[in-house]
């Protein structure tokens, strides 16, 4: 990277962007390759090393203390205490000066709590600038910003570039990337595919690079139009229908709205559209409502939202099905959960071993078993193969097909487009919370999906 350069990093989810950044920041160890800083080879073992070199990372989740003022946040942990006393006047003056230079004077005494995301991001950048950062890494800074705010950020970046600060900029919005960056690097499966100046490139070029250098011919894996009866229909900003035995894949960039759609369908969060189940309009105000109407959710974050680590494998499997009665027949329960363990090939020693002792893939299968046992009509699978070993992944895909064969409708998301192409009958692509397009077997290619998901050609 050249000094005073804005360098954009693009690639599919899982292409290796985060890993690369983590290596740069010293969070993860490098597994090959050498890092050079200002011409010299350097070794960055931890984030402190990185900071000493002048590298600062601005996270997606911002690290500000909401109760403190702008000035306090900028100088957090590094109060310039010449005499041992913190000089607030000095801090405020210097903070105001920094924002002046950034071209966005703001009231530095206001607490951060009431500020919008754009302002907070600016504060993070100001913080990095205040400590002579030479390289600022922005991880999807614009994902949640409005066009105007994004434009403001772009101006700030260019202003700082003029003062010799370099940027690494990660984004899914290709158009913006071309606008902001001087140079663009496309990553795929952990390797650099293309690295070229942004001036000579366009969106289609990038998309092709992201998807793979060539248009690989695929055997049509999608099964085409399904004419069975409709089980689920969503009317509103997102129009979607799901038929019996159909597997619909949801594709989209992070923040594209896939997880959000599944979550509100399952009754957590406000319901922005009308939902019909088997032709009848329903309200999904809580997970209980959703379950009552035959929906089931396997959430993306297993540890956070699905697994009860201290409870036994058996209790975890039975959790959804026991809703139907008051007393529990332990023998029946053992028999039933044992059946699922065998059928889904969950590798466990005992039914009463705690769920925490199972591998990630087995935990995921356990969560699937929970809903299979409960007998859902519509299965919402949010990233069911994330963090799962290859064998379990294949087994989970196999299971999805079996379920569809028996009439269950499945709505599936995955950050891996290949997975979607493998498992789904058709793919609906979301971009910024809206449907960007729907692809059936013939049209669905990785490239087309990426185009839609990154907002190209809209």
């Amino acid at each position: 990277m050249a000094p005073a350069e804005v360098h954009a990093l693009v690639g599919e989810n899982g292409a290796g962007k985060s890993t690369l950044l983590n290596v740069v920041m010293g969070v993860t160890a490098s597994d090959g390759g050498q890092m050079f800083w200002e011409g010299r080879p350097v070794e960055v073992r931890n984030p402190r090393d990185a900071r000493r070199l002048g590298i600062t990372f601005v996270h997606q989740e911002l690290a500000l203390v909401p109760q403190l003022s702008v000035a306090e946040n900028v100088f957090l942990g590094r109060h310039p205490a010449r005499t041992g006393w913190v000089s607030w006047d000095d801090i405020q003056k210097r903070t105001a000066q920094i924002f002046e230079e950034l071209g966005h004077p703001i009231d530095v005494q206001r607490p951060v709590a009431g500020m919008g995301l754009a302002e907070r991001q600016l504060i993070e950048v100001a913080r990095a600038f205040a400590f002579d950062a030479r390289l600022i890494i922005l991880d999807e800074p614009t994902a949640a910003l409005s066009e105007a705010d994004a434009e403001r950020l772009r101006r700030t970046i260019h202003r700082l570039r003029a003062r010799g600060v370099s940027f690494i900029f990660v984004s899914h919005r290709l158009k913006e990337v071309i606008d902001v960056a001087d140079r663009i690097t496309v990553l795929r499966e952990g390797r650099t595919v293309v690295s070229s100046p942004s001036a000579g490139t366009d969106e289609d070029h990038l998309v092709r690079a992201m998807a793979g250098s060539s248009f690989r011919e695929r055997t049509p894996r999608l099964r085409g139009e399904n004419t069975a009866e409709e089980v689920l229909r969503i009317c509103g900003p997102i129009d979607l229908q799901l038929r019996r035995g159909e597997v619909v894949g949801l594709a989209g960039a992070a923040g594209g709205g896939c997880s959000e759609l599944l979550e509100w369908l399952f009754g957590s969060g406000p319901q922005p559209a009308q939902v019909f189940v088997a032709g009848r309009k329903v309200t999904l105000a809580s997970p209980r409502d959703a379950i009552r109407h035959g929906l089931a959710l396997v959430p993306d974050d297993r540890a956070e939202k699905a697994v009860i680590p201290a409870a036994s494998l058996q209790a975890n499997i039975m959790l959804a099905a026991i809703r139907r009665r008051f007393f529990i027949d332990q023998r029946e329960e053992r028999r039933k959960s044992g059946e699922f363990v065998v059928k889904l090939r969950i590798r466990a020693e005992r039914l009463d071993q705690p769920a925490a002792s199972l591998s990630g893939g087995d935990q995921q299968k356990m969560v699937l078993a929970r809903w299979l046992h409960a007998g859902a009509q519509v299965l919402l699978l949010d990233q069911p193969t994330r963090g799962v070993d290859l064998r379990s992944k294949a087994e989970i895909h196999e299971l999805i097909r079996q379920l569809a064969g028996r009439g269950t409708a499945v709505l599936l998301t995955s950050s891996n487009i290949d997975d979607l192409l493998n498992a789904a009958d058709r793919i609906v692509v979301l971009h910024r919370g809206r449907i960007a397009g729907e692809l059936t077997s013939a049209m669905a290619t990785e490239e087309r999906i990426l185009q839609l998901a990154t907002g190209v050609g809209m």
Partner: protein
Amino acid sequence: MKAAAQTVPFPQVPRLTGAAVLRRFGPLLGLVVLCGVFGGLSEPFRTGENAVNVLRQSAVNALLALGQMVVILTAGIDVSVGSILGLCCVLAALLLKAGVPAVLSILAALAAGAALGAVNGVLLTKLRLPHPFIPTLGMMNVARGLALVMAGGLPISDLPVRFRVWGAGTVAGLPVPVIVVGLCYVLGHVFLTRTTPGRDLYAIGGNARAALLCGVPVDSRLILAYGFSGLTAGIAAVVLAGRMNSGFPLAGSGAELDSIAAVILGGGSFFGGVGTAAGTLAGALIMAVLRNGLNLLNVSAYWQTVMIGVAIVVTVWIDMLRQKAANR
């Protein structure tokens, strides 16, 4: 589905590992060791009369601990049980003095306890107070204050015999409170292991978000748990007032901490999702045996408190070692 039903039953490895044994029977083991030590040191400790004494002395704490365990199971805490106990004591005594029949007075005390406990649950879930400590701390003060107001600060003594049998009577050589404790624990055990709401409590304590996404009615289950804790406090109140022949408004001061200690000694986890009725009973008995044995050895109450403190820390420490060993 047909094919699946014919699959071989899931292989069960019957042998338990050392860690699993310690986990399941640890509290019981501690109790046996403790009894062995005191039995060796003190002759009166070995008498049947003393055994009955220990059981009777443990009754109030055992009842409170059962409710407390159910709450701690949900990763909560109930610091109001001691005060609810005091309030129920006074309520029952006042009703008895007003000529209300013993059975009705008892039912009123139980209902009051359950209702106050449920209020804790409602405050927690509906007002969305940040931590169970807050509503129960409030209730702790409110209930104690109400008890003092209702009683005018004075103990209400000399209660009718029909009421006192619940705390002081015996049936076939067994004190009535011991029978009450046994019954409550059997019911508690069945509730926790054989019913859906009981199971739900483990799920809520283990991972509340997951429980919610599995359709567990989290709020109503929490209200149930706190209501149950209040109910056991009401039962404990009847036992205590009967035993002491008095409803005194300061009854149960500090009892909440004893009940929490019993749950922890019995293998319950503050993080929720772990705990059994049997373990908690063993925990309550450990505390009673410790106090009783030390009393018989003429160790002062202050030193007893030190010993119980040490026992709690050692128990949790051993538990941590065990978990570390299991995770290795």
